[in-house]
């Protein structure tokens, strides 16, 4: 057992316990094998709810919940392959029936590195669909950062030019009309020169996201200061007068190639913020810094913290070694379910359903109940699959509490169907009723007024419909079937199978035609 230090406050004791349970695995993805480097059991950290300045609020409902961390090898080559791999792993996990479901229960962290770039980790990807875009936008970001590096080198920038030489420019803005530069309490306005950065702060690094924002994010993450102002922004928009801008350029001794960054904060905090800015600017000469970033919904990401290495792992002194008995390992291995991609093909083939249905059954953890129903009753397997999947989803959309439906409920419905006690048309309304938890299936049927129709009763209804439509049959012959079928079904829908109705009605019509009346 190891400890991984978490000093951001999300784990109150300061470390997360983590235990390697698997190494050197692999998963087949589109004809190739993606390596699974490690699988660990860990305890989850607390979830950040909000930040107010330097105060962070966490909710503890997730703290200490066991989670499995699955790390793939750097074998994934395209954003699409990334999605497919994540999907496959998710499918595999779901197929065990042992993992929690719901938003946030499976989270992806992706690591992106490109040639000449660096490994950058993006955390907190809650939706699979975000993955390709996040990966693609990270590639764009790294390429942009490399471009900025090349431009800086081209301009002859040197690392030692980026020194923390903070100028207090509060005086310049003493009479300012700029709202965001209005000071409160002990706030000062501090500025720093970024040599040869002119134009680069305004360069887009991701769609709609400029390099200046990268700096601002990092300042906010580290110091809690909400924003910075830089020279590639439209300063007039902030209410900074041309005179103020000139005075500022003069005070900072700016060349045409240079940029500046301003902050408004209490002195110590402001200095800290500009230190972050200068350090980040210096790092630009190296290209892409190793960082951990937070996924944003639009496919971009923002700075979270510097990337941790394996170096923060150390042994947990509270737990004695856990010895894994080889016999136990063998027993577990023998009880593992089939791989879902094998199971998918088998389900589709054996039960004659589409492989899409088979996959959905596995994803929604309904494969077991599907098999049980199909093997127990003489029912149409496609009907069972579509009921379990589409019908239930449809009811859910209508606000039916489908989570109340149990395995017994589904079994009962298909048992009655196979015994002819209900028609397949009655399934949706019956399930909706069952979701309200009546005492049993018969009560649900009574409540719905569904009484199974006997063949004799059906024949009687058909005879009546035929008798009152004699003229139609005489004039239209067999083509009278359609309207008459509609009339009969109106009376018997849900009480008996439509196929039976059609057979009997057809027979009755041809009998009338043959014998006259």
């Amino acid at each position, binding site marked *: *057992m*190891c*400890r991984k*230090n*978490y*000093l951001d406050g999300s784990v*109150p*004791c*300061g*470390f997360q316990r*983590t235990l*390697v349970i698997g*190494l*050197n695995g692999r998963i087949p993805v589109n004809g190739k094998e993606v390596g699974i*480097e*490690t699988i*660990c059991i860990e305890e989850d950290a607390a979830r950040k709810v909000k930040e107010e300045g330097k105060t962070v609020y966490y909710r503890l409902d997730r703290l200490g919940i066991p989670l499995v961390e699955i790390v793939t090898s750097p074998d994934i080559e395209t954003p699409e392959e990334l999605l497919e791999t994540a999907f496959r792993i998710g499918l595999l996990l779901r197929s065990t029936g042992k993992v929690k479901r719901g938003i946030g229960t499976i989270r992806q962290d992706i690591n992106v590195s490109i040639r000449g770039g660096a490994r950058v980790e993006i955390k907190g990807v809650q939706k699979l669909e975000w993955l390709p875009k996040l990966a693609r936008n990270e590639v764009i970001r790294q390429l942009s950062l490399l471009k900025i590096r090349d431009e800086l080198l081209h301009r002859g920038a040197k690392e030692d030019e980026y020194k923390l030489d903070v100028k207090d420019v509060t005086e310049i803005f003493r009479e300012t009309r700029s709202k965001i530069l209005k000071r409160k309490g002990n706030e000062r306005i501090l500025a720093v020169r970024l040599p040869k950065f002119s134009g680069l702060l305004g360069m887009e690094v991701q769609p709609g996201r400029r390099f200046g924002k990268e700096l601002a994010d990092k300042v906010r993450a580290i110091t809690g200061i909400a924003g910075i102002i830089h020279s590639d922004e439209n300063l007039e928009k902030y209410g900074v007068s041309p005179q103020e801008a000139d005075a500022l350029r003069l005070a900072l001794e700016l060349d045409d190639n240079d940029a500046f960054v301003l902050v408004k904060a209490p002195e110590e905090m402001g200095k800290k913020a500009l230190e972050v800015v200068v350090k980040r600017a210096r790092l630009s000469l190296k290209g892409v810094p190793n960082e951990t970033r937070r996924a944003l919904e639009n496919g971009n990401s923002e700075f979270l913290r510097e990337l941790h*290495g*394996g*170096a*923060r*792992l*150390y*042994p947990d*002194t509270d737990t*004695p*070694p856990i*010895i*894994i008995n*080889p016999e136990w390992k063998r027993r577990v291995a023998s009880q593992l379910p089939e791989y879902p991609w094998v199971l998918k093909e088998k389900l589709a083939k054996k039960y004659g359903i589409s492989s899409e249905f088979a996959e959905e059954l596995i994803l929604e953890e309904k494969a077991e109940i599907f098999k049980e129903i199909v093997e127990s009753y003489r029912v149409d397997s496609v009907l069972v699959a579509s009921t379990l999947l589409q019908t239930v989803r449809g009811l859910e959309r209508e606000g039916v509490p489908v989570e109340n439906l149990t395995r017994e409920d589904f079994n009962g419905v298909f048992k009655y169907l196979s015994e002819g006690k209900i028609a397949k048309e009655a399934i949706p309304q019956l399930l909706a009723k069952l979701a309200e938890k009546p005492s049993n299936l018969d009560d649900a049927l009574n409540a719905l007024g569904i009484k199974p129709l006997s063949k004799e009763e059906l024949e009687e209804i058909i005879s009546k419909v035929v008798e009152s439509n004699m003229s139609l049959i005489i004039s239209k012959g067999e083509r009278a079937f359609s309207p008459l079928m509609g009339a009969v079904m109106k009376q018997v829908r849900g009480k008996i199978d439509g196929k039976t109705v059609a057979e009997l009605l057809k027979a009755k019509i041809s009998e009338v035609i043959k014998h006259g009346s």
Partner: protein
Amino acid sequence: MAPKDKLPGYRGFAKRKLEEAKVKVWSVVRVVNPDTTYEGILLPRSELGDDRHVVLKLKTGYNIGVRISEETIIEELGYSPSHYALPERDVSFDPKKPTVALIGTGGTVASRLDYRTGAVIPAFTPQELFSAVPELEDICNLKTLSLLEIFSEDMQPEYWVKIAEAVAKEINEGADGIIVAHGTDTMHFTSAALSFMLKNLSVPVVLVGSQRSSDRPSSDAAINLISSATVAARSDIAEVVVCMHGSSSDEYNLIHRGTRVRKMHTSRRDTFKTIGDIPLGMVADGKIKMFRNDYRRRSNQRIVTADTKIDPKVVLLYTYPGMQADLIEHIIDTGYHGIVLAGTGLGHCPKTILPSLERAIEEGIAVAMTSQCLYGFVGMNVYERGRDLLKIGVIPCGNMLPEVAYVKLIYVLGHTRDHEEVKKLMTHSISGEITDREPYNGYLILQGELN
């Protein structure tokens, strides 16, 4: 000295395999099993481990145990020794700063982790401590002395004597304050013992420990050390005190009188509480704030003596429903000289042991009564059982804590076994162990929303 063990923690089969492969701890090794191969740094094992596994630190930083068998092949790929020492910080003596002597009794005072190997590097010398806890440098000159190497649960009355003598010596040689680094389990026993033994104290003697080892981020070690150094170097107290966290956060440390303090929680960082009284004061952000005036003040005198005459033949007994006399009989027959009872309520015990207690006293054994309630005074004139006990000669100990009474009786019996003398000494406060009254805010137990 014996040659250093190259495979610490390994034994039996595992040790043999590793020796055959000519590898040692911190070797970078490849372990080839029939099904898988692993590479990593060979780590030391805990002494309690089995002999069928070796422990590796993988490149990813994770530690794993790898099962080995006869077929396992182990190869050395390199060697990556742990730097089992802190970078020492050379700090020159500053005559303007007070000098504090830190006496170690065992365990790590502070430490730092070597993340690469996962090893906990202990810090003890002044250079190491200044390196691990740089704030100390601003507070005082530091002198360290490793007196004992024991767990606090293995503390013995004889060791109290050693510590008291060492403290007296350091003060007389000029220390401006003393820190005794001590495991928390029995810290309050030692603080009581030092309180009784040290006479003419002229500087603070501060006991300190940590509830969370310094290998974890929640450790209280550094702040406790900084706070106790502040008290030792700068406070005007000339008493034995315990200085530990006052709340579960790192807000402040409390300064507890050595004879009124008790460990009250197995794991909380604010485990030490002053019982039936309020603490002497607190330390926060390097500032000391005293809560009261009735403490002995610092002076320039250097005439401290350690009065270390003791008689450890004393037992401390809880009384409880179902308690039987044979226990007492056994104590009498095995030659003990004193019994401290932690009685129920106002100082009671079951009548089953009354005749044996009477016999004990007749045979010259001092029997003292405290209360297992911890808070409040024994009141042995209130109920019949109390009066019976007083009549047979049981000594009522006021609101002295049971552990303190145990330590005090050891100290007192080292000086006299005369019943009247013992009674006089046990019923009068020597070092604040019995107070005149319990203040209205001296009884504090967190319960629900209330304080």
